[in-house]
């Protein structure tokens, strides 16, 4: 019998793909921890719901009060679903600003240096901030849409134009609205990375979202529907209406804006001194 031989297991190099996946998970986890441990995140959620639902109800009441003056044509295209979820625009601005702050607050305090020391892969950090805020914005907006819809339909019931949640296109509209706001949050992170002062970045984002409703009036209707704010409005529609993209197309347009904003911000942040 031969002497005991030890078989050495050769060290197996960890595949690069697995290192990078671990890294992505860690960065995402860190950015999620940052977001959820900031009390203002939760205050923002409450604010979004209060203002968003309030706005949805106000718009529904104003619409129904004008019902008797509406033409038959106007009544024909009336969309009780989108008319009860106007709060999606409020959600876009307030949660978009939250997304802006995830990056500008770190630049203004200097904490960005701790962030980039702990996680030198800067583009991944930006992507993780975008993913975390988008994941946060989705359920908050969905809840707001649901509440706005339910309250709005009670208001519309007085003129017998209410629809139920099971009505074709209603549930998709709620979801599309939440996806639209999540994409606006990604645009917000991109805006924050490109414009570091909080005030400047938040104002820019607000103009991107609601500016389309004012400045956009001067654009040809064919162009106007591609503005981020108008696309967000289109996401919650059920009836096809003139001057608005189909909801699916609207989300695609927002996704393109989000990719451009985040990509540009990642390039800028990666190459500048922190």
């Amino acid at each position, binding site marked *: 019998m031969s002497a005991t031989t030890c078989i050495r297991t050769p060290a197996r190099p960890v595949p690069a793909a697995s*290192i990078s996946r*671990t*890294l992505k998970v*860690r*960065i995402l*986890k*860190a*950015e999620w*921890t*940052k977001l959820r*441990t*900031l*009390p*203002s995140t939760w205050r923002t959620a409450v604010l979004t719901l209060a203002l968003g639902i309030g706005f949805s109800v106000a718009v529904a009441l104003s619409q129904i009060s004008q019902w008797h003056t509406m033409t038959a044509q106007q009544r024909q295209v009336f969309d009780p679903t989108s008319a009860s979820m106007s709060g999606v625009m409020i959600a876009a601005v307030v949660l978009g600003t939250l997304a802006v702050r995830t990056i500008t*607050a*770190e630049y203004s*305090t*200097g*904490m960005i*240096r*701790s962030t*980039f*020391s*702990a*996680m*030198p892969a800067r583009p991944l950090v930006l992507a993780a901030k975008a993913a975390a805020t988008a994941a946060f914005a989705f359920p908050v907006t969905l809840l707001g849409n649901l509440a706005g819809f339910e309250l709005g339909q009670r208001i519309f019931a007085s003129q017998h134009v209410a629809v139920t949640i099971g009505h074709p296109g209603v549930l998709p509209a709620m979801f599309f609205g939440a996806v639209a706001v999540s994409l606006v949050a990604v645009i917000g992170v991109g805006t924050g990375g490109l414009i570091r002062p909080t005030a400047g970045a938040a104002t820019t984002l607000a103009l991107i979202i609601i500016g389309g409703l004012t400045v956009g009036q001067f654009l040809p209707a064919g162009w106007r529907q591609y503005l981020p704010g108008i696309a967000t409005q289109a996401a919650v529609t059920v009836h096809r209406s003139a001057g608005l993209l189909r909801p699916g197309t609207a989300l695609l347009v927002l996704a393109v804006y989000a990719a451009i904003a985040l990509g540009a911000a990642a390039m800028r942040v990666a*190459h500048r*001194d*922190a």
Partner: protein
Amino acid sequence: MIEAQHLIKRYGTTVAVDEASFAVRPGRVTGFLGPNGAGKSTTMRMILGLDTPSSGSVLVNGKPYRELTDPLRSVGALLDAKAIVGGRSAASHLAWLADSNGIGRRRVTEVLELAGLSDVAGKRVGTFSLGMNQRLGIAAALLGDPETLMFDEPINGLDPDGIVWIRNLMKSLAAQGRTVFLSSHLMSEMAQTADHLLVIARGRIIADASTDEFVHRNSTPSVRVRALQPADLAAALTRRGALVERCPDGAMIVTGLDSAAIGGAASAHDITLFELAVHGASLEEAFFELTRDETDYHAGQLTGTSQGA
């Protein structure tokens, strides 16, 4: 271990760091000494991969910082204790740092304890004093149990207890074989904490030596003497090659002779001494001696010119 090779950082036409080459070795506290604006913080930011050098390179534990996997496990750094979003609790701040480098939450509790912050772990960081922020910054630096530690002006804003705590902590970290790199413009603090000094002025490394050697090489010890017959003693000491400076209070500051030689001279001439005190050279004097021509602005230059700095 930190190794810089011909490190240069330019901002427009200003050269913040000028051809800095140095090595910060493990097992000792290396002080990074220089006046404000000398380039200490810029150098530290380049070490951490936050700022990109205009040219040259710097390696931490043999690698560029950005190529380290789980950097907090290799290098712990405190740059600016106030640079922190105030809404989170101390524990939450450490929690995201831990998550980012795959460090367990138990370690968060450990470093909070180590930094003496256990009682305020759940308090908002925004309510912290500067001293508490410094402790939190040090807890964050220690989180990954790194072999290299770097602190930028860590004793700013600390009370005397805190200063002693930091001093002992730095020494014990170095005694464990870690690389400890500590910047300060406070020379007295460096004299008590650092084993080795790297002196920077106007972006250039002007000295790289042990603290004792630096002090010895750059300053002259002197002896303060008071005698019953000052004129006789002065004459006797001058004959022996000493430089004697008479003070208005009757004392003399003698350089060039040690206390034994002065005592011997006095006794040979029957001179009565009632004070003989060796005045050791301080790091402060050594520093001013070395940087006299290097610092950008001397206090004296502020008078008589109309130009602002």
